[in-house]
């Protein structure tokens, strides 16, 4: 029983050590984020090929009072109505 538990623990550690990793590069590019349509980018550079991004979250909370006040994805025709019409 003890041996079985020990072996199970070691196998679990080996599996954890083999955890896969993905690399994503994000950028912000342009003179002014109010007027630049493609200012922000997220690029999935490398991974196992079976991994998929579920969500990406930009966080301005470290800057008191800072916020996003408009957002759009012109290339996709996305302009969320609840969030300002660019």
């Amino acid at each position: 029983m003890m041996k079985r538990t020990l072996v199970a623990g070691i196998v679990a550690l080996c599996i954890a050590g083999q955890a896969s990793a993905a690399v994503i590069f994000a950028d912000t590019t342009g003179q002014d984020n109010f007027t630049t349509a493609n200012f922000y980018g997220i690029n999935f550079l490398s991974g196992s090929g079976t991994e998929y991004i579920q969500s990406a979250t930009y966080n301005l909370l470290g800057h008191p009072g800072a916020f996003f006040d408009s957002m759009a994805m012109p290339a996709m025709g996305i302009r969320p109505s609840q969030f300002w019409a660019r």
Partner: protein
Amino acid sequence: MTGLAAGDVTFALLDPVNGVPSHPGRLQFNFAPGSFGVGDSIRFAADTDYLVSDPASGTVFGQGSVPLSISMYGGAFGEANFFVVAATWSGAVINTAAVVPVPVPVPGALMLGGIGVSLVGYLRRRGLMGQPLTMWRETLWGQPLR
């Protein structure tokens, strides 16, 4: 925009600043399962206010070390801060990895496991499993515990 369709992307406006719903402190993109894979990319527009400077160039996110977090289907997670790459350009490199519950290196775990198995086997052979310490002392060193 590569590899995704408009229907693959939804948004969440989180942590409204001063209670204004259209002024989120965090902006989250959610992607449909199986849509945002290796080689895919998105680009979008968003204005910011009160972040380092206004108007905000691409450098501002790096100057402000703004964090971006990525969650993967399957539970892996990564986060990194933007850094300034060049004039009007910032970047962030996010490496995601599954959460490792116990930070013990595999060789170390194997060694510890081996020692444990050997010790249990030895004690069993000597009939010492479940015996009091006085018996251990007598058996191992041939003299009673004082």
